[in-house]
């Protein structure tokens, strides 16, 4: 008989991690601290400090998008987890459906919708309203992020909420807790791990995106992802500068995540007390 907890079953995963996660990370660190000839230098890192405002702007837009995703996805996931099994299946299918289409195409479609002569503005002018400036604003970028990443918020929330047994909610209301008390003292603490993984899965890709900002953001919404793209694919093929900026981004994301997970452990401790 094969013991499923046998150590060797994890080897493929370890090899995969080493090759495609650890090694590339080490390469990024190596390139960030060397110049084109391979000598040690701090210039790249110093230079990337110039781009902190861009980084902060990216964090701002990504945080906004994450917040919107959470606000939209949380009640949706809760309601969905309370539906009958076949309905749940159908709903998760509908959430996955847009992801079968390429990400670029979906963003391109938003461009056509939001353009000055796009679908929305054509409708607005048709019913006699003045056209609105929708595209090439930071709002359009946030919209693009929310649209593209919301499944990554719904799915972890949903999967954790299906584990909240109906009897727990009933017990809570039997003991006299109202809707808000049940939510605050039962549902919220129990779904916290789902919130944390959902926030991570939305925030991290959103903060490093470059396609969405380029297509929907116009000239005024330049994000850190765009910058890294230019450093790698610009005229000078500057691996070192690009790596330094990537490293800066990674460090900031890690710090954000660390702070966030501290909140989680504190709260669960409190729930136990």
């Amino acid at each position: 008989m094969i013991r499923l907890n046998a150590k060797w079953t994890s080897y493929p995963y370890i090899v995969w991690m080493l090759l495609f996660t650890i090694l590339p990370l080490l390469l990024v660190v190596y390139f960030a601290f060397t110049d084109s000839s391979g000598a040690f230098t701090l210039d790249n890192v110093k230079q990337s400090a110039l781009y902190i405002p861009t980084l902060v702007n990216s964090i701002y837009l990504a945080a906004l998008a994450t917040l919107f995703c959470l606000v939209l996805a949380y009640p949706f996931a809760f309601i969905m987890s309370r539906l009958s099994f076949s309905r749940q299946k159908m709903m998760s299918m509908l959430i996955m459906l847009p992801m079968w289409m390429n990400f670029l195409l979906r963003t391109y479609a938003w461009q056509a919708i939001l353009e000055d002569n796009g679908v929305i503005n054509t409708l607005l002018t048709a019913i006699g309203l003045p056209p609105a400036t929708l595209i090439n604003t930071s709002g359009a970028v946030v919209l693009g992020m929310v649209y593209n990443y919301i499944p990554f918020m719904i799915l972890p929330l949903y999967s954790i909420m299906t584990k909240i047994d109906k009897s727990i909610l009933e017990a809570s209301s039997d003991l006299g807790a109202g809707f808000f008390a049940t939510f605050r003292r039962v549902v919220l603490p129990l779904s916290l791990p789902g919130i944390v993984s959902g926030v991570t899965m939305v925030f991290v890709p959103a903060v490093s995106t470059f396609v969405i900002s380029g297509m929907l953001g116009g000239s005024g919404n330049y994000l850190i992802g765009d910058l890294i793209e230019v450093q790698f694919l610009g005229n000078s093929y500057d691996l070192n500068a690009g790596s330094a900026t990537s490293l800066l981004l990674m460090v900031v994301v890690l710090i954000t995540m660390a702070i966030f997970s501290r909140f989680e452990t504190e709260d669960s401790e409190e729930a136990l007390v």
Partner: protein
Amino acid sequence: MKKVLSVFLALLVALCAFSVTAMADDADAYAIDEEYYAKFKGQNLKLYVYNWGEYIADGADGSRDVIAWFEELTGIDVEYTTFDTNEGLYSKLQSGSAYYDVIIPSDYMVSRLAQQGMLEKLNFDNIPNFARYVDESFRNPDYDEAQEYSVPYTWGTVGIIYNTKYIESVDSWSALWEEEYKGKILMFDNSRDAFAIALKYLGYSLNTEDAEEITEAAELLKQQKPLVQAYVMDQIFDKMVEENAWIAPYYAGDYLTMAEDNEALAFAFPKEGTNSFVDAMCVPKGCVNREAAELFINFMCEPAVSAENCGMIGYSTPISAAKTMMDEEMTSNEIAYPSAALLENTEMFVNLSDETNRQLDILWISVSVGSLTSGFWVVVSVSAVLILTYSVYHMTVKKKRAAMRAAKDV
């Protein structure tokens, strides 16, 4: 009524017959030597070709699929992939992660690749069509003076595309800095092309290595930024055709494609001069099927093939013989084939020094990044508030626990 119809039909048949014979004449003069192309038949060779996107006749719009044509003629299997920018091609080759037999970079990239020893020298004995068909003016170009590494594929110019519904006429790069068109201006999303425009507008060479001239151009681009709707490449097609933008600099060949979809679009050669370019076929270092690669290059120089390609993509052919097989409307077009006097006022890119390339990139990023946004202060203040509440919360929890523990101990 019937009579009219039959006369009309007869005329039509006659017309068809006439055009068929006319085409046959041309085809005879520039017949394809099938035997020459059959030399690798039966060897199951595979050829990897790397070209710009939407840059070959692929059977769409009534054109002939030239890759299929080549495969049929030679028995060589072609693996055809595409890229978006010269720099993308360069980094792909640099990383060593992909194998190609034939690549089609632009002029300055040809010279950079050649300088860095990334190209094989071509054996022109295997490319007889170069001597036979390629126009004199495209031989020994600046980017490949000794004519060792490249064979021209297409050429073209950059100019200003504008919508005549909103803009009366344009004759200078200054139109792209016009306050009036604020939010309706598009701009190149790559540093080399964007700087070329600013440099030309200032009256400098677009190949300048003078740091001060480049800085001056960067300042000009920064001034332009608030007026620019977006920095784009091929998205320009949709934005101009749908009239979401009024004015944009782009390649002449693509203007011809856009004009088919929106007749209000016009094209202007700015009086300050502009950039002209050649995209050329090369063989990268390490190619194992060099002779087959050269066979492919030779095939692309067949006038009939070049006519198919240029007829479809709208860029200009360096092979005059091909023009006789193309639409008269296209070959007589001043935009696709500008007069010698206009070409006099154009300049081709050459490869810049590493230092200048770096400066261009850094300045381009500083143009794109712009100034601090309101988001910056929002994030700074929100995170300050968060940290503050967190530490206050932390302290109260600690105190509570200490109190609880003290209570327990008692």
